[in-house]
C-alpha cells in the first residue's frame, strides 16, 4: 500500500469535496429559509460564472471589480426571482415550487446559450497551475483557494444564522403561517435567501469556472451539490461542509480502487450510491433537523 499516494488522493479528494460544499451551501441557504430544494442552483452558478467572464473579459473590468459587481447583480436577481415567480406560489404544494425551480434552471441554461453560445470560455483567475508541494504530496492551488472560500462562507453563514435576520429566516422555514402571524415578511425572507444563494453561486461559479471552464455543463454541478446537501442534511451548513469532504474523499479514493476493476467511470456510480443510500438509510442526512413528532 502506497500511503503517500493514498493520502494524496484523500487530501485532494477532500479539497474537491469542499468545492462541492461551496456549491451545496447555496442549496442549504434556500432550504433553510423556505424548505424548498432549489433545482436552479446549478443554473445560477453557471450564470454567475458567465456574468463574471462577461464583465472581466468582454467589458474589460479587472477581476476584483468584476466579481463583486457580478455578486451584486446576482443578489438582485435572487430577489427578483422571488418577486416575479415564487411569490405567486406561496402556500402551494412544495412540488409545484420544485417544478418552478427546475423550469428556471432550464431557462437559465437556454438564456446563457443564446447570449454567449456553447463554446467553453475560460475564467482566467490568474491562479498558478503549478502544483503546490506539501512534503511529498502535491495539491492543486485553485482547489486550495476554493476550499478556503468554502470555509470562509461557512463561517460567515454560521454567524449569519445566529443573527436576528438569520433567526427570522429559520423561523420562516419552520412555519410560514406562524411567521406571518408575528409580522415576519415571509416574502422578503425567502427573497433574501435566494439573493444570498445567488451570491454563493457567483463564488462557486468563479472557482468551478476556473477548474473546468465556463459553459452550460457548470449547471450539472447540481447533481453532486444535491448529493452533498442531502448527505449533510439539507438544512445544515456544517453538514454541507462535512458531507462535501466525505463525498470528495470517498469519490477520489474509491474511484482509484474501483476504476481498474470496471474500466473507469466509477465516480458517478459512487456519487449515485451515496445519494441513494443516504435517502434510504438516513433521510435526515448527517446533521439535518428531524421532524418533531407532535403528540
Amino acid at each position, binding site marked *: 500500500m502506497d500511503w503517500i499516494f493514498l493520502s494524496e488522493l484523500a487530501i485532494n479528494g477532500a479539497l474537491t469535496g469542499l468545492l462541492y460544499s461551496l456549491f451545496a451551501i447555496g442549496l442549504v441557504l434556500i432550504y433553510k429559509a423556505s424548505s424548498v430544494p432549489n433545482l436552479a442552483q446549478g443554473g445560477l452558478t453557471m450564470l454567475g460564472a458567465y456574468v463574471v467572464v462577461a464583465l472581466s473579459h468582454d467589458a474589460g473590468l479587472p477581476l476584483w471589480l468584476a466579481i463583486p459587481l457580478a455578486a451584486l447583480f446576482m443578489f438582485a436577481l435572487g430577489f427578483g426571482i422571488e418577486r416575479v415567480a415564487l411569490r405567486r406560489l406561496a402556500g402551494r404544494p412544495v412540488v409545484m415550487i420544485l417544478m418552478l425551480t427546475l423550469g428556471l434552471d432550464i431557462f437559465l441554461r437556454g438564456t446563457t446559450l443564446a447570449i454567449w453560445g456553447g463554446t467553453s470560455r475560460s475564467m482566467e483567475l490568474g491562479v498558478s497551475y503549478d502544483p503546490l508541494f506539501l512534503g511529498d504530496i502535491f495539491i492543486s492551488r485553485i482547489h486550495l483557494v476554493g476550499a478556503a472560500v468554502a470555509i470562509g462562507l461557512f463561517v460567515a453563514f454560521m454567524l449569519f444564522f445566529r443573527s436576528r435576520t438569520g433567526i427570522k429566516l429559520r423561523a420562516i422555514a419552520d412555519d*410560514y403561517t406562524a411567521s406571518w402571524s*408575528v*409580522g415576519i415578511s415571509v416574502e422578503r425572507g425567502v427573497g433574501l435567501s435566494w439573493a444570498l444563494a445567488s451570491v454563493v453561486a457567483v463564488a462557486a461559479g468563479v472557482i468551478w469556472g476556473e477548474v473546468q471552464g465556463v459553459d452550460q455543463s457548470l449547471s450539472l454541478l447540481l447533481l453532486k451539490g444535491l448529493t452533498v446537501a442531502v448527505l449533510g442534511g439539507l438544512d445544515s451548513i456544517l453538514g454541507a461542509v462535512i458531507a462535501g469532504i466525505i463525498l470528495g474523499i470517498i469519490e477520489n479514493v474509491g474511484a482509484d480502487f474501483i476504476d481498474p476493476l470496471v474500466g473507469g467511470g466509477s465516480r458517478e456510480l459512487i456519487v449515485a450510491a451515496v445519494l441513494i443510500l443516504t435517502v434510504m438509510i438516513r433521510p435526515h442526512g448527517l446533521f439535518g433537523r428531524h421532524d418533531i413528532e407532535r403528540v
Partner: protein
Amino acid sequence: MQDKAEAQPILSMNSVEVLYDNVMLAIKGVSVQVPKGEMIALLGSNGAGKSTTLKAISGLLKAERGRISRGEIKFEGEDITDALAQNRVQKGICHVIEGRRVFEHLSPDENLTAAAPTGMSRSTLNAEKEKIYAYFPRLAERRNSQAGYLSGGEQQMLAIGRALVTQPKLLMLDEPSLGLAPFLVAEIFGILQKINKEEGMSVLLVEQNALAALEIVSEGYLIENGRVVMNGTAEALKSNSDIQEFYLGGGEGTDFHNVKHYSRRKRWLS
C-alpha cells in the same frame, strides 16, 4: 376626549363576509367590536367560523386562499380590510394561531427573537424578553432547549410570549386552552388577565371552553354557522339558558348528551 376614546372601539368589524377559494362562504356578515382595554370572547362550536373571523382581522386569510368579500374592518379608526398581515402586526394586532404553532426547531429564546419587529433595539428586545419570562417562569427555565420538545402548556405560553414581543395593542388568541389540563388553562388565563390589567392590552379570545372564557372576559359573542347569534356581557351570557344548556353543560364542557342537543339546536339556527 375621554368620551370619544370610550366611544370608539379599538377594533370594529362590520358585516364581514369571508370566501375561501372563491366559493366557500365561511362567515356571513359578522360584526364584532372590541372596546379598548377590554377582554372579549368569541364562542361557538366546531366549524362555526371563529378562526376565520380572527384570520380576517389579522390578514392571514391570504395564506389559505381566503378573502374578505364584503364588509370592513377598522383598527383604531383606520380601515385595515385590505392591509398586509405584517402591516397589521406593526399597527398592533397580533394573532396567536390555532394549535400552538411555535417554531419547533428554534429555542424558545430564538422564537421570541424571531418575532421582534425590525428596528426594535437589542436592549428593548431583551427587556421585552425578561418581561415575558417573568410572566411565564416555566419558559425562562427552558429558554435554550428546542421548542418542539416543550410540553403543550409550555408551547402555548411560548406562542403567547412570541406574540407579546410584537407589543400588540390587540392580542387575539385562537383556542389557547385546547388540549390543556384545567390547572394550566387557569394559569394561562390568569396571566392573560394580568397582562390585560397591567398593560391595558385589549384581548379577543376564541374559545370552545365557554365556561373558562366567560370567567375572564367582560363581553362575549356567540357564533353559529358563520353568523353572530348572540352578544352580551359575560354575566348575561352565563345566565342565558341556551348557553347554559349547550355550551356550559353543567361545567364539564361537552359530553355526548350535550352533543345530541346541540345538533338539534343547530337546525333551528340555520
